C-alpha cells in the first residue's frame, strides 16, 4: 500500500471527464460514446437518517447528457469544465457524492446495455448490464411549466416509480436507470418518496459523452509535482454488486462506521490524504474513492 499526501488543488486535475486538455495517459483512459444533443440537470434528493438516527435529506445535482440512443447520468460537478470548479464547493460535492452513493451510468453503451461505475470504498467497480425495458403505465395529461408534462407509473427492480415526462422533449432518456417513456423524464419519485429526481434546468449543448475505461489518479511524482496514474475498475455483475452492497453499505453499522468492511489494503492500493493549502489534512481518499468518517443510512434505488 502506498501512503501519500496530495494538495487539494492537485485533486482538481483528476476530477472532470469533460476537461478540455488531458495528458496522453488520461486521454487513453477515455472513450467518446458520442455527442450530446442537450443536457438536463436534476435535483436528486434522498430522505434518510444520519448515524445518530436523525432524519436528514441529502441533495445533489445530477447532469444527464442526452445523445442519440445513449445518455450519461453523472454528478453535475463532474460534468462541469475544470475551470468552473469552485475549490471549496468541490470538496462538498465529493463528500456529498460519497454520502449519497452516486453512480455514473452510461446508458446505451455498449449497444443495448448500460455501463455503471460505482464506488464502494476502497474500490471502484464497473458493471455492464442489460438496458431492460420498464413497463410504464401512462396516466392522464398534466400541464406544467411550459412543457406538456404527463404522468406515468412503472415497476423497476422492486420499486414503483411515479414519474412526469415531457413529450415536447422527444427522448426516452431519464435520470439514473429510468428510461423508456415517449419524452424526457422530468420528475421521478419512488413509492415512499425516499428518492426524488427533479428536473431543474436544460441546456442546449453539444459536448462529448465520455466513458472512462480506467479511472485516473493524481499522485506525487519523484521529480516533483504530480503525475497521473490509471487504475482498472473491478468488474462485477449486477448480482455481485447487489450482494456487495448488502454486505457493505447496506449493513446496519455502515452509517456509524463506514470503514467496518474495509479489506486489508494491498501494495498497489493508494491511500491518499488530501491537504488544504496550509497542509492541514482535509480528507482521506483511497484509490480515488472518498472515505467517510460517518455516513448516512444507505437507501437502495433497486431492490432486485
Amino acid at each position: 500500500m502506498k501512503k501519500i499526501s496530495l494538495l487539494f488543488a492537485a485533486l482538481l486535475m483528476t476530477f472532470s471527464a469533460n476537461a478540455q486538455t488531458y495528458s496522453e495517459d488520461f486521454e487513453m483512459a477515455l472513450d467518446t460514446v458520442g455527442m450530446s444533443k442537450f443536457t438536463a440537470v436534476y435535483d436528486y434528493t434522498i430522505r434518510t437518517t444520519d448515524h445518530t438516527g436523525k432524519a436528514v435529506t441529502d441533495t445533489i445535482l445530477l447532469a444527464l447528457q442526452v445523445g442519440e440512443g445513449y445518455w450519461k447520468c453523472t454528478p453535475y460537478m463532474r460534468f462541469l469544465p475544470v475551470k468552473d470548479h469552485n475549490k471549496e464547493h468541490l470538496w462538498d460535492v465529493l463528500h456529498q457524492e460519497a454520502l449519497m452513493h452516486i453512480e455514473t451510468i452510461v446508458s446505451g453503451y455498449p449497444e443495448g446495455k448500460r455501463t455503471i461505475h460505482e464506488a464502494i470504498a476502497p474500490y471502484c467497480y464497473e458493471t455492464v448490464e442489460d438496458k431492460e425495458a420498464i413497463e410504464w403505465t401512462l396516466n392522464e395529461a398534466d400541464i406544467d411549466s411550459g412543457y406538456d408534462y404527463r404522468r406515468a407509473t412503472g415497476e423497476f427492480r422492486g420499486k414503483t416509480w411515479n414519474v412526469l415526462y415531457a413529450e415536447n422533449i422527444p427522448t426516452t432518456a431519464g435520470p439514473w436507470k429510468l428510461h423508456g417513456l415517449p419524452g424526457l423524464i422530468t420528475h421521478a419519485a419512488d413509492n415512499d418518496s425516499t428518492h426524488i429526481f427533479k428536473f431543474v434546468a436544460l441546456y442546449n449543448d453539444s459536448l462529448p459523452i465520455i466513458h472512462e475505461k480506467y479511472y485516473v489518479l493524481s499522485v506525487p511524482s519523484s521529480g516533483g509535482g504530480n503525475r497521473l496514474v490509471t487504475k482498472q475498475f473491478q468488474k462485477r455483475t449486477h448480482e455481485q454488486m447487489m450482494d456487495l452492497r448488502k454486505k457493505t453499505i447496506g449493513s446496519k453499522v455502515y452509517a456509524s462506521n463506514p470503514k467496518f468492511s474495509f479489506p486489508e489494503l494491498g501494495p498497489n492500493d493508494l491511500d491518499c490524504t488530501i491537504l488544504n493549502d496550509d497542509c492541514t489534512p482535509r480528507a482521506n481518499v483511497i484509490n480515488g474513492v472518498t472515505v467517510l468518517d460517518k455516513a448516512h443510512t444507505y437507501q437502495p434505488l433497486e431492490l432486485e
Partner: protein
Amino acid sequence: MKKISLLIIALLMALSASAQVKVTGRVINLKNIPVADVIIKCVSEGKTLAFTSTNAQGQYTLELREMPNRAVELQFSHISYEKENVKLTLTEKTTEQDMVLTDKQVTLKEVKVQAQPIIFQGDTLSYNLASFLGKGDVTLEDGLKRLPGIDVTDNGTIKYLGKAISHFYIEGMDMLGGRYNLATQNIPAEYATQVDVMKHHKHRKIDADEESDDVALNVKLSNKAKFKPFGQPAAGIGLREDDPLYALGLTGMMFTDNFQLLGSAKGSNHGNFGSYDIIDHFGNNDISTLATDKLGKWNSARPPLGEYLYQTNAYASLNGIEKMDSDRQVRMNADYAYEDYNSSSSTNTLYFADGQNISINEENRPHTRLHRPMIEARYENNGNDRYFMDRVNMKAQFEENECPVIATDVNNQNRKATQLAISNYLASTVRMGENKLSFNSNIEFVRAPKVCLNMNSISQTGQSTTITTDHSTSFTIRLGSKWRISLPVNLTAYYNMIETSLHAPDDAILGQRLDGWVVTPWASPSTDWRSPSGKIYMSIGANLQWRNMMYRSRFDDKKTTMSELFAEPRLSFRYTFSGTSEMSFHSAIYNSVGDILDLLTTPVQTNYRTTSMASGVIGKNQVWASSLSYTYQIPFSYFTLTADAGWTQGKRNVLSSQYVDEESTSTASIFRDSHTKNANANLSISKNLLTLSTKLQFTASGSWGSSESMSQGKVVTTYGNSYSFKGQATVTPLPWMEIGANGQYSRNYTWWTGNHRTTDGENASLSLSVFPIDKIEIKGSYDFVRSQITDNQYKNFSLLSASVQYKASRAVWKLSLNNLLNTRHYRYTTFNATDRYTMDCHLIGRTIMLTCKLNLVKK
C-alpha cells in the same frame, strides 16, 4: 377441477394473443443511416394506445393489445429530426411501416425550474427564498417574514420558533454581530437566494461536539450581489402637521468569498429611518453604569399602537470582515448615531395606598438627545482544534433629557449624563486529544463622570466607576464517546464606586460615596451524557460561588462585608423523538446578590416627587426556575408547532416598600423576606400553504403569578392570572391581491386582600394589498383596538394608513399616507400590583411621505 382451470387459462391466453396487433418497421435518415432512440407513438383520438422506440439499427416493434376499430396515427419523434406522422388503418395482425426522417435544428427552450422551497439537512433548514417572496417584498426583512417558523419583531429581531437567533451570517461570515438590521433592511430581497436556519448551532468549530440550543441564520446571495459593489441610495420628502419632512440615506455593500464590506449613513426627521438599522439585537449598544441606573432618564408612556415619538435621527456605520483563511477572520465595526426624540402623555395614577386610593394626574413632555459613538475590532481564529478570539470595544453615550411635568404646578426637570465604556474580551480554547482547555478573560472599564438632574430647585448629581475583570478556564474530559465531565473555573472581580449628592434649598446636602470590591471565585462542575442513538441528552451540574464583598462608605467610614458560598444546581434533559420533534426540560436554582446600590441609604431624588432609599442590607434573591418545551415541525408541509410551560419561584431577603401621599412618593427596601411565584404556558402554531401563498400563525399563552410588596407600611400579597390568544394570517386569494389579518384577545384577573380587578382588551388589524400590475402595490391597513380603561369604561381606537409602491427594475418608489383618520390620542391602562396607571398618549397626526430607494449595481 384443476384441469378445467388450466384449460380456461390457456384459452384466455390464446384469445389474448390473437387480439394483439403488431406494427414493425425501420427508421432511417436522408443519408440512409438507421436512427436510434426514435419515439414511435400510436395515437387514436388524442389517446396514446402504445409507444416504443427504435434500437441502434433503427428497428422498432409496436404492440397494441387489441385491433383498433378506426384509423390510428403513428407519430415518429426524435430530438434531432422533424416530427413525422403517418395515418394507418390496421387490419392485419402485423403491419410494417418504415420511416425516413429529415434533420432539424435542436431548438429546445432552455429552462430553469425553481429549486425546492425547503431542503432539510440534519439540523439545517434551507429555504429557497424566491419560493416564498410576495410581489410587494423589497428588503430581505420582507422576505424573512414570509418563511415558515420565522418571525421578525417590530424592531427587527429575527426569531425561529420563538427563539431569537444567536448569529446572523452572510455567506457564512458574521460581519454585523447583533446589528443585522443593516443587512435585512438594505439587501434587496431578490439578491438573497437561500436562507439557512441552523438549529443547535455552534459558532465555534471546536464546540462541534457540545450541546447548544442556539439558532443561527445564514443568508446566501445570488451572483448579482457578489464580487461587485452595489449600493442603495434612498431619499424622501413629506409633510407632517404642516412641518416638512425629509429622509436621506446611502448604503454601499460588497460581498466576495473572503471579504465583506457594508457602509451606511441615513438621516431623517421622521420615524425610525435613521435609527432602525443600527439596533443591536445582542444588547451591545447599551452602556449600563451605576449612576445612570440609579438616576435614569425620564420617558413618556409608550402606546402599544400608533406613532407617538417625534424623532430626528441619523447614523453612519462602517463594517468590514476579512477571511484570511478557512479559520481566521478580522472584523471591524464603527458607528456613530444621533437621536433626538420627544413625546407627550398624560397619566392618571391611582395608588391603592392601603385603601386610600390616592389619585395623581400628571402631564409629561420628555425630550431626549443622544450621541452614541462606537468602535470595535475583533480577531478570531476558529479552528477545529483551537479557538482564539480577541475583541476590543470602545463606546460612549452622551445624553440630554428634559421632562417638564404639569401636575398641580408646572415642574421643570432636566438631566445630563455621560457614559463611557472600554472593554477587551479574550477567549481561547485548545483541544488536547479528547479533552479541551479554555481560558477566557474580560476586562471592562465603565464610567459615568457626571449625571446631573435638576428638578425645580432641587439638584441631584451622581458619578460612578466600575472595573470588571472576569477570567475563566475550563477543562473537559471525555469518558468514552458518550460521557463527558466539564470543570470550568472562574474568577470574577469588580471594583465599584458611586457617589451621589442631593442639594435641596434650605436643606443640608445629602450625599454618600461608596466604593469597594466584589471578588467571586466559582467552579461549575458538570457532566453530560448522550445516548448511543443521540436521541437522549442529559446534563447535571452545579455552580459553586464564593462571593466576597468589601464595601466602604467614605463619608461615615462604615464598612460592609459579606463572604458567603452559594450553590446553584441545574439539570437539563432533551429527548429527540425524530428529526421533526423534540422535547426538552431544564431546571435550575439561581442566586443573585445585590450590589453597591443596596447600601445607598442616603435619599436619592429621581424625579420631582420621588425619592428612594436603600435598606443598607445586601439583597439576596434565590429563584428556582423550571421549563418544559416541545417543538414539532414538518418542514415539507411547512408546519411548525411549539409548546412550552415554565414554573418560577423566588425568595428575596428584602421587601419593596412604597409610601405615597398627595405630594410625594418614597420607595425603599425593607429587611424582610418576600416571595414570588409564576407559572406560564405558551403554544404557537405556524403553517404555510405555498399553493395559496398563505402563512397562518396562532399563539396562545396563559400565566399565573403571585408577589409580595409593602404599601403604606402594610404587606400586600397580589395574585394574578392572564391569558391571551393571537391569530395572524397573510393570504393571497388572487394573484393580484394579498390580505393580512390579525386579531388578539387578552384577559387579566388580579386580586389581593378584599379586592379584585378584571380587565380585557381586544385588537384587530386588517391590511389589503392590491397589485393592479406586478410592479405596483396599493396597500391599505386598518387597526382597531377596544381596551378597558376602568371597571365600566371602554375605549375604541382606530388607525388607518395607506401606501402605494412602484417597483421598477432599479428603483422602488413609495408614497406613504399615515394616520389618515388623524387620530391624536391613544388611551390605555396598565397595572403594577395594586396600582393602576391610565395613560393618554399624544399621537403624531396625518403624515404624507414619498420615498425612493435605488439599486445601484456595477455591471
